Structure formats: structure tokens, C-alpha cells
């Protein structure tokens, strides 16, 4: 509060002495707020992260390695990576198209489309999984046809893939939309009038200005795919070595009281989360630098 009062709205020395006269009382409130905020942040966010890392290495590096190199763990990790590889590019292309459409153009139904794209963020992942079970499961109208053609979607990789696509659909689009909206269309219009093709316009004009936001969206999407639990849990059927992603593997280990192994597997995802957080700061820094340069 003190810096508000002392900021130079009225450049008179009087305001300075007035401010110095009651520093303790003014600062007391400040310290209380700081203490509340820091303890709440550490209690709610810091401790869970610390617990994961500590529990993972509790029994030493040897058993940490052993837990990660176990066959089921490796299988779960490679399945998770495969799903991410299948999901992230698709949702990136969709995110680019949707953000371009919604950010550069105004048309009827635009708000409805934004609400729809936001839906996966608001709906329970379990409900998302259930939707795919009802659409492609044995009970569904499609079920008999899929069975007749020997196509397995639910309790198999395609189900995990589809539900992961659903859950992470908004990430890239959401990251890009506010940026594209705020950038306006002047540069693209100029380039188009000077004869740039649509592709040149995108590649040389728009993409360089949104690459950091795009990269951040991709990384968020990737982290969510690798960590998705609820939706995948509903459609996967938990078949060990076959349809167990890394988060499902963690759940099984934890329920079997193999705590160290569970936390070791969890620490892999926790490190990934930390990288995601660090990258966010890097992307933001570049973004604000770019914004201040263009301003």
C-alpha cells in the first residue's frame, strides 16, 4: 500500500513525510498479506510437489531406477508417448485453424463455436470418457458393426487416442485466440494486398508473431495428454502392458501399496510438469519482449 501512496501523483515532499510518519502501521498489513499468501501457496501447491520428489527417491537411486525400468513401467511410458505423438499434431493443426478463424474473422455463430471449443475444459473427464464408451462401445448402435469388422475402439488404443483428442482439443486454440484477436488483421491485409498468397501470408507474417504462444500451447497440450487420467481410465480397460498409460500405471502401483514405485513413475510426470512451467516463463518473456518491440 505504501508504494501506492508514495507514487508521484502529487510531486510534493509533503506526501513523502506523510508517508514516513506511519510506516509500521502501513507495513504491518502488507506483511500479514504476504505471510498469508506465501503460506497458502506453499501449503497448497509447494508441498504436494515436494512430496512426489521426496517419496520417489526415498529408497535411493537404485530402487528409483528399478521402478522406472520395470517392464510395465516402460510399456506404460511408451504407450503414453505414442498417444501424445498421435494427439498433439492433430490438435495443433486444429488449434491453428480454429484460432485463425475465430481470431481474424467475425461471423454469425462465432460465440457458439467458442463455447463449444471450451467445453472440454469445463466438462468432467469422466463424462468425456463415457461419451466415447456410449458412441463406440459394445452397447452402442455402432457396436455390432465395429465387432463384425473386428474393429476395437473401447478398451484399446483408438479409444485412448480419441478421448485424449477430446480432452486436449481446446489447448492450442485457447492459447492462440487472445493473441490473434489482439494482433488484429492490418499486417495480413497489407501482405495480401501486396500480393502474398494465403500460405506465404501465414508462414511469413502470422506464424513468426505467434510462434511462442503456439509452442506454449503445444507443450501444454502435450503435458495434458501424457497426464490425462479420468477420460483414459474410463475407456482403457486397464489391460496391463497393453492399454495402461503412465497415469493408469501409477494408480495400479499405488493401489498395490508399491508406493516408492508409484512415486518414481509419478516423478517422471512431475519433472515434465516442471519443464512445462519453466517453458511457460520463457515463452512469456519472449512474448512480452516481442510486444514491447512492436509497440
Amino acid at each position: 500500500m505504501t508504494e501506492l501512496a508514495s507514487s508521484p501523483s502529487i510531486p510534493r515532499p509533503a506526501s513523502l513525510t506523510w508517508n514516513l510518519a506511519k510506516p509500521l502501521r502501513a507495513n504491518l498489513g502488507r506483511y500479514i498479506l504476504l505471510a498469508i499468501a506465501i503460506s497458502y501457496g506453499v501449503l497448497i501447491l509447494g508441498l504436494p510437489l515436494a512430496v512426489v520428489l521426496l517419496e520417489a527417491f526415498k529408497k535411493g537411486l537404485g530402487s528409483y531406477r528399478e521402478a522406472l525400468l520395470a517392464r510395465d513401467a516402460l510399456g506404460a511410458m511408451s504407450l503414453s508417448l505414442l498417444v501424445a505423438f498421435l494427439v498433439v499434431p492433430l490438435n495443433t493443426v486444429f488449434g491453428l485453424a480454429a484460432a485463425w478463424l475465430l481470431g481474424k474473422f467475425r461471423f454469425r455463430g462465432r460465440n457458439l463455436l467458442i463455447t463449444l471449443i471450451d467445453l472440454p475444459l469445463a466438462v468432467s473427464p469422466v463424462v468425456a470418457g463415457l461419451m466415447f464408451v456410449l458412441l463406440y462401445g459394445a452397447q452402442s448402435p455402432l457396436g455390432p458393426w465395429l465387432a463384425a469388422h473386428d474393429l476395437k475402439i473401447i478398451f484399446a488404443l483408438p479409444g485412448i487416442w480419441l478421448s485424449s483428442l477430446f480432452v486436449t482439443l481446446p489447448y492450442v486454440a485457447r492459447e492462440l485466440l487472445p493473441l490473434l484477436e489482439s494482433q488484429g488483421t492490418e499486417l495480413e491485409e497489407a501482405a495480401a494486398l501486396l500480393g502474398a498468397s494465403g500460405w506465404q501470408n501465414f508462414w511469413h507474417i502470422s506464424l513468426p508473431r505467434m510462434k511462442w504462444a503456439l509452442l506454449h500451447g503445444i507443450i501444454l497440450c502435450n503435458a495434458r495428454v501424457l497426464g490425462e487420467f479420468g477420460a483414459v481410465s474410463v475407456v482403457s480397460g486397464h489391460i496391463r502392458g497393453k492399454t495402461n498409460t503412465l497415469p493408469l500405471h501409477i494408480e495400479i502401483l499405488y493401489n498395490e501399496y508399491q508406493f516408492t514405485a508409484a512415486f518414481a513413475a509419478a516423478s517422471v510426470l512431475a519433472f515434465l510438469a516442471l519443464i512445462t512451467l519453466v517453458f511457460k516463463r520463457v515463452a512469456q518473456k519472449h512474448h512480452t519482449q516481442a510486444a514491447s518491440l512492436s509497440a
Partner: protein
Amino acid sequence: MVPRHSRKQIVPGFGVTLSVTLFYVSIMLLLPLAALLARASELSFAQIVPIVTSERVLAACKLSLGAAALAAGVNAILGTVLAWVLTRYDFIGRRWLDALIDLPMALPTAVAGIALSALYGDRGWIGAWTSHFGISIAYTRLGIFVALLYVGLPFLVRTLQPVLAEAERTQEEAALTLGASPWQNFRYVVLPQIMPAILTGAAMAFARGVGEYGSVIFIAGNIPKVSEIAPLLIVTKLEQYDYAAATVIAVFLLSLSLVLLLIMQKLQMQSQRYRLKEVQP
């Protein structure tokens, strides 16, 4: 703002992006949604009534709504404090704390779930301490509340931070020089400006909390009618091949999410309008 249809479109790509977006949204979003609604519409009234009046379903929905509302409320207050401190004060470790806020968005829910239950269990750092006072958090409703505090916090802080950073300082300076106390300044100058953002953030945290599964089930205890949340009940019903009950609960959660999304959009438009009015002299 470009007025609708006022001039020929110069920026390329409308047709391509429109068709890609509509195609993808139809296959990935509308088709699954339609499957759920179609399954729900097959249910007769006589099938639905026993489901929605069953004690277990009612208890689960009440618990999910109640815990999510309580957590969103607490986060609305403490999240505002955090956002205030992060935007207005400079202190050692501010950037670390700021980076940590995004953790629940980046850390998978299952990881958070086992971490929270280890932390608040009887042998955990916090659980061991509270058990001295006869309070157990893990495997009770209190555990669900704590997990939803964790899940919801970033929504409040991240919605508030930009608004607090942009808020008109001149008004605050005027209030303070005219003799307003810091509290009066916050209550009468700052709070009215940030109220839409607080409500938006709380609505987001509430929506996320009602549907949250991974970080809750490890710490919840999952006792039917006591500590069983609605998303877990969907999974349980599905495992028992009770598709009707799973569908009914899912439609309830889905409609709630839709209503909350619309409310959030309204609130966001309101706060934008407020800000526009501020900028234009």
C-alpha cells in the same frame, strides 16, 4: 472491431479454416455429445425417476457440488490475496511463487492425487500433525475439499492477475490521498473493479471442481453416500454395466458445465465492457 460483412474479406483463409474447424468439431465434439444425449433420450421416465431419487446418486451430487462450492469460495478469498500480493508487492521468491501457481494445470491429476493422500494421510507431514488434534483429512470429506482447493487455485489467481495489473491506479491514488484507509481503498475502489474477474475465476474453479476425478479419488475414501463424488459414481455405475444411471449423472454434470460456461462468457463480456468504458474518455 471489423463490422460484420461491411467489406470484402481481404485476409485469406476463411473458407479453409471454417471447414477444418467445423469438420473437426463435429467429429470430435458433437458426435460424442450426440451419443450421450441419444442414450439419455432412450431412457423412459420410469427409468429416470428411481435413479435421480436414489440416495446414493443424490448424496454424490450434493457432495460434489458442496465441496466444489466451498473450495471455490475459500479460493475466491485466498486466491485474491495471492493475486494481490503477486501483482502489487515485490519480494524475494515472488517469481517462484508465481511460477508455482500453474502447477495444478501442468501436474497430472493422478500424480497430484497420490501426493495429496501421502501428504494428508495419517503418516504424512500434515496428516500426522492434524491427527494430534483428532482431525483426519485423508479418506474423509475434508480430503475432497483440500484436493479441490489445490485444483481450483490457479483459476482464481490467473483470472485476477491481469485485471489487478491493469486496474486504474490513479483512482486508488486519489482515494488514498483523500485519506482512505488501505482497507477502504480495497473495498470501495479495487473490489468493484475486480469483482467480475473474481466471479469468473470462482465459476471456473467450481466447474473444474465438480468434475474433478484424478486428484480427488485417492484422498477421498470413496465410501458410498459419505465420501463418493459424482464422477466416481459414473465410473462405478459403468463398471456395473448400469449405463442408464451413468448416463443420467453425466447429463446432469454436462448441463451444469454448459450453464457455467455461459455464465463465464457473460461475466467476461461484462468485465471487458467495464474496461472499455474505463479507457474511453
